[in-house]
């Protein structure tokens, strides 16, 4: 089975990367200043293109099916965590969940991954209610998703190569040469110097590099859904820009549906098709970034502050 055939077997692969994408960053920029300059240029372009470009990315809600949807979800431990939360991420959208600390943003991620089960309401992936799945069926649903953790959560006993190859070895019948080709492809996608990092251990990588390897591992299986937990926290502004750019690139080039939990309003506005604002365990706002900035709601105005 060739690598291409192996790729076709994967669920949710939508669109191959466009070779003529003018906004794509140079893949092998060994000079760090060149990389930084490229990121700046890319972000300036994104900013200039502004809403017009975002509108191009954003699919029309009516025509696209919901890939992730929460319907009237409530959950409480000792006290309420989520109350009657509903929203949907349609195919190819990037939904960013923002809100104050402790309002239940990360809980939503765990519900989507079916690491937690809601007390009331439904969580649907591709229209399938995952609330009552068995543990084994939940593992299968999780294979549709790629998750990038706040601290990258790379397996520290494995090399970068083994980390990215892990989901392929677990869930596909790909040969070793096909796995290597896929690992290289994903590491190139996240703009890492493949030959340099392939045999490195996670402890030898910088925070930004770990995060990028985490993204490569998350997308190794060509998932249709990518989940990000605080993708830009603890990173310097340029690395933040790089990671933000990668999330936009995932959406543009591969049509992946993403759900991002973030505190970083600036990068959220850059990457989001829709923003879900969690306030007091409820959805206080759900809409486009433009609708959010145009809102007169006092809480939203206060939350956005000087942005």
């Amino acid at each position, binding site marked *: 089975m060739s690598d291409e055939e192996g790729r076709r077997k994967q669920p949710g692969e939508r669109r191959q990367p466009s070779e003529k994408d003018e906004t794509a960053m140079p893949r092998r920029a060994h000079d760090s200043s060149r990389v930084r300059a490229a990121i700046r240029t890319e972000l300036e372009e994104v900013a200039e293109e502004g809403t017009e470009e975002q509108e191009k990315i954003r699919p029309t809600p009516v025509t696209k099916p919901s890939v992730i949807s929460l319907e009237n979800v409530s959950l409480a431990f000792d006290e309420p965590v989520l109350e009657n939360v509903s929203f949907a991420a349609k195919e190819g959208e990037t939904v960013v969940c923002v809100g104050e600390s402790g309002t239940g943003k990360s809980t939503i991620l765990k519900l989507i*991954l079916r690491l937690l089960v809601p007390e009331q309401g439904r969580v649907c992936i591709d229209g399938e209610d995952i609330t009552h799945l068995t543990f084994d069926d939940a*593992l299968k649903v999780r*294979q549709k998703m790629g998750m990038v953790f706040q601290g990258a*959560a790379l*397996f*520290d006993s494995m090399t970068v190569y083994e980390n990215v190859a892990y989901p392929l070895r*677990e*869930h596909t019948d790909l040969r070793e040469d096909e796995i290597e080709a896929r690992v290289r492809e994903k590491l190139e996608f996240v703009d890492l110097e493949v030959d340099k990092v392939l045999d490195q251990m996670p402890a030898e990588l910088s925070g930004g590099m770990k995060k990028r390897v985490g993204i490569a591992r998350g997308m190794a299986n060509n998932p249709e859904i990518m*989940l990000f937990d605080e993708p830009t926290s603890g990173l310097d502004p340029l690395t933040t820009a790089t990671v933000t750019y990668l999330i936009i690139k995932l959406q543009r080039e591969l049509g992946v549906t993403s759900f991002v939990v973030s505190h970083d309003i600036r990068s959220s506005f850059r990457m989001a098709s829709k923003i879900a604002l969690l306030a007091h365990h409820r959805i206080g706002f759900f809409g486009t970034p433009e609708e959010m900035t145009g809102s007169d709601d006092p809480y939203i105005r206060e939350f956005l502050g000087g942005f």
Partner: protein
Amino acid sequence: MPLETINDAAKRGVYSLQEYFELAGKAIGFIFVKPFYTADVFQQMDTIGVGSLGIVLLTGFFTGMVLALQTSVQLQTFGATDYIGTLVTGSMIRELGPVLAGLMVAGRVGSGIAAQLGSMRVTEQIDALNTLGTDPIKKLVTPRVLAALIMLPVLTIINDFVGILGGNVIAKYYLGKPASLYWRTVYEQMLTNGFTLHYIPNDFIQGLVKPFVFGGIISTIACYFGLNTTGGTEGVGVSTTRTVVTASILILVVDYFLTQVILAIFTP
């Protein structure tokens, strides 16, 4: 509200116990379910078995020597120092070999497993396994439990042998007994308590059932505390300590009850 506090504590205790047995049951059940993480099992056998060899050799040898030395004082009173091999062998095979190997492995390997899994928990690597569609119990716990179940009896056999060898050193160089006499008493002791299936000395069964059980206790306790680590790096330290303390106590308590049961079964 002291009654409510006691009530809550009791509920938590029962819940923890239930979770522990659920984990142990799943870990053992997964030994027979695909996919088999064979490479992980061999890696753990290396860590648990080969890695603990040095410490087990040392403790076994010196325990055998001190056992011979102490008992020689008592035996001299009765002029029975010829039987030193009998005492050392009986004690090492039935009791000290399994318990000492168990305690050493609990300290060295149990703490290591708890620290490793605890670190993986606090750095979200366990969650990462879950999200990558892998059952962490199958990937992490089962190989460790299986490796401990296999390697503890092996380590105990080595521990017994070097212990008896240590006894021989004392018998020969301190008490001046010929090695042939010592080893003959060792051999006779092994055959004293009868056989199972005509060929297997009952002492061997007692000496190998215990480390098998201890291996299960150490690995499941370590994995349970490791996987349930909370509270960051400080929590990893707490899990490690809890593992060593709980496993050590359980080894000693279970050893007593196991001895009772085995004696009831095998004593003619």
